[in-house]
């Protein structure tokens, strides 16, 4: 039971990352590695602000804004300086490692016994005792749901239409008299804002910031997106945001199972990489088959 709750908690936090990665990888066709830096960025800002007694909601908003700013940097590097997409993300990610250390002041910043979105006067009074074990999960679910609904809404606005168009066919955006570079930048900002939000939630759930926590974020995010989209390809009714959230939970479940069946922490990243390669190959296989049919 504890394991299931833990899987769902982790899976839902990574669902928010997956939604961000969905924007860059799936909509913009931009493999954005900045997320390895923006995820801990959200955590660093949140931990630092909470540790100094600032309201956790405010800390979350600050994390979101910082994530958007980092996305803006990646976007400007790519669009204005014409650096390749992958490299633009790597530059931001690398820079953020130092930035995160500066923000937190050290490599590891615990926030035990502080006020967080999971531990504060309001939630402690409204949650009845029998729901106590699920309190964290419920709150994470609500945050993830809010992120999903907001993103769903945005993708149906005029601005959201252009975002989808720029990944689909940039020439259309140009003929609509809009700058495709600007639209790409907006997409990167939203994506990294979501990822930083996930970092903020994660840091409050685990009660610490750790500078290494971002390593491999992109891989998990991509895996969640590819699993989700591949699984739900046939079901047009399921929104992609829902699909990638389910993908994220499934991925976390697989990892948890692997660990219970004796996978050592040392091999973790190796197995992750192999698993990811497998997912990629399967997804590509399907795509090329689809192309041939078309």
């Amino acid at each position: 039971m504890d394991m299931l709750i833990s899987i769902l908690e982790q899976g839902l936090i990574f669902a928010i990352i997956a939604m961000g990665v969905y924007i860059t990888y799936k909509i913009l066709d931009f493999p954005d590695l900045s997320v390895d830096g923006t995820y801990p960025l959200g955590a660093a800002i949140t931990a630092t602000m909470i540790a100094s007694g600032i309201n956790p909601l405010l800390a979350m908003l600050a994390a979101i804004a910082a994530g958007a700013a980092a996305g803006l940097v990646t976007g400007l590097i790519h669009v204005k300086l014409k650096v390749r997409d992958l490299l633009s993300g790597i530059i931001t990610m690398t820079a953020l490692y130092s930035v995160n250390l500066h923000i937190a002041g050290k490599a590891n910043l615990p926030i035990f016994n502080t006020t967080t979105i999971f531990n504060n006067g309001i939630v402690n009074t409204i949650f009845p005792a029998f729901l106590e074990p699920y309190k964290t999960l419920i709150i994470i679910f609500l945050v993830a749901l809010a992120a999903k609904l907001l993103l769903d809404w945005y993708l149906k606005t005029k601005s959201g239409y252009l975002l989808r168009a720029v990944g689909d066919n940039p020439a259309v955006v140009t003929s609509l008299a809009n700058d495709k570079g600007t639209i790409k930048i907006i997409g990167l900002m939203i994506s990294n804002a979501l990822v930083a939000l996930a970092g903020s939630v994660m840091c409050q759930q685990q009660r610490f910031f750790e500078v290494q926590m971002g390593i491999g974020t992109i891989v998990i995010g991509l895996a969640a997106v590819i699993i989700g989209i591949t699984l739900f390809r046939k079901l047009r009714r399921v929104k992609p945001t829902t699909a990638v959230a389910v993908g994220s939970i499934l991925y976390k479940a697989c990892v948890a199972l692997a660990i219970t069946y004796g996978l050592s922490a040392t091999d973790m990243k190796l197995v992750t990489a192999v698993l990811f390669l497998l997912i990629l190959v399967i997804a590509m296989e399907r795509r090329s088959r689809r192309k041939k049919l078309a």
Partner: protein
Amino acid sequence: MLSLEHIYKTYNRGTVNETPIFDDFNLTIEDEEFVTVVGSNGSGKTSLLNIICGSIDVDAGSTLINGVDITRMDDFKRYRKIGRVYQNPAMGTCSEMTILENLSMADNKGKPFNLTPGTDKRRIDFYRENLRHLGLGLEDKLNVTVGSLSGGQRQALALLMSTLTPIEFLILDEHTAALDPKTAETIMELTDKLVRGKGITTVMVTHNLRYATGYGNRLIMMHEGKIILDNKGDDKCKTSIEELLGIFNRISIECGN
């Protein structure tokens, strides 16, 4: 009015692939002119359209719209006044978005793409009416993704999208070339109706000499980056397919083919 003045352009300058294409090229297109452009492959037709639209830079010379120099203006800004349809039907539409979503975007051209709903439900009847005029049955497929349409249907949609909002110039690059003869005919008639109905100044590149002679009120023939024939008014009406074929043959003999 659209003018190109003293245009010079060489692709890949200073490399082994250096391709000079325009050497003091001049062209003025008056308002409401419908110019058909013919010429052999590589004669610079697409390059000409790309220069008008700002898709490529020129080495020297100026592009003017209504006397205003737009040579340094970004391509996307020029499209406020320009609509464009490409040879490839996939270029003018978004394949993973629905017909309705594509039309909604096109309908919003020139207005801000903000956080209001992407589709204005009150406009759906208007879209449906426009789709019905195409005569391809698209009015019943508003919620179908464009990727699943045929090339002809996509091209018709692209043409509709590019002319949905008021534009001054329409740029067509072999936009019927990828279509079967019957669909090509439909699209061509539709183009003529739109252009004349809205009085849009139009440049249409085509390899179909029947279209080149039968439509429009000015005919230009290009060869190696130069205009070698430019017939307007009565001359244009009298230009025959045979005459054009004759020139094509003469050129290819001169080129040693």
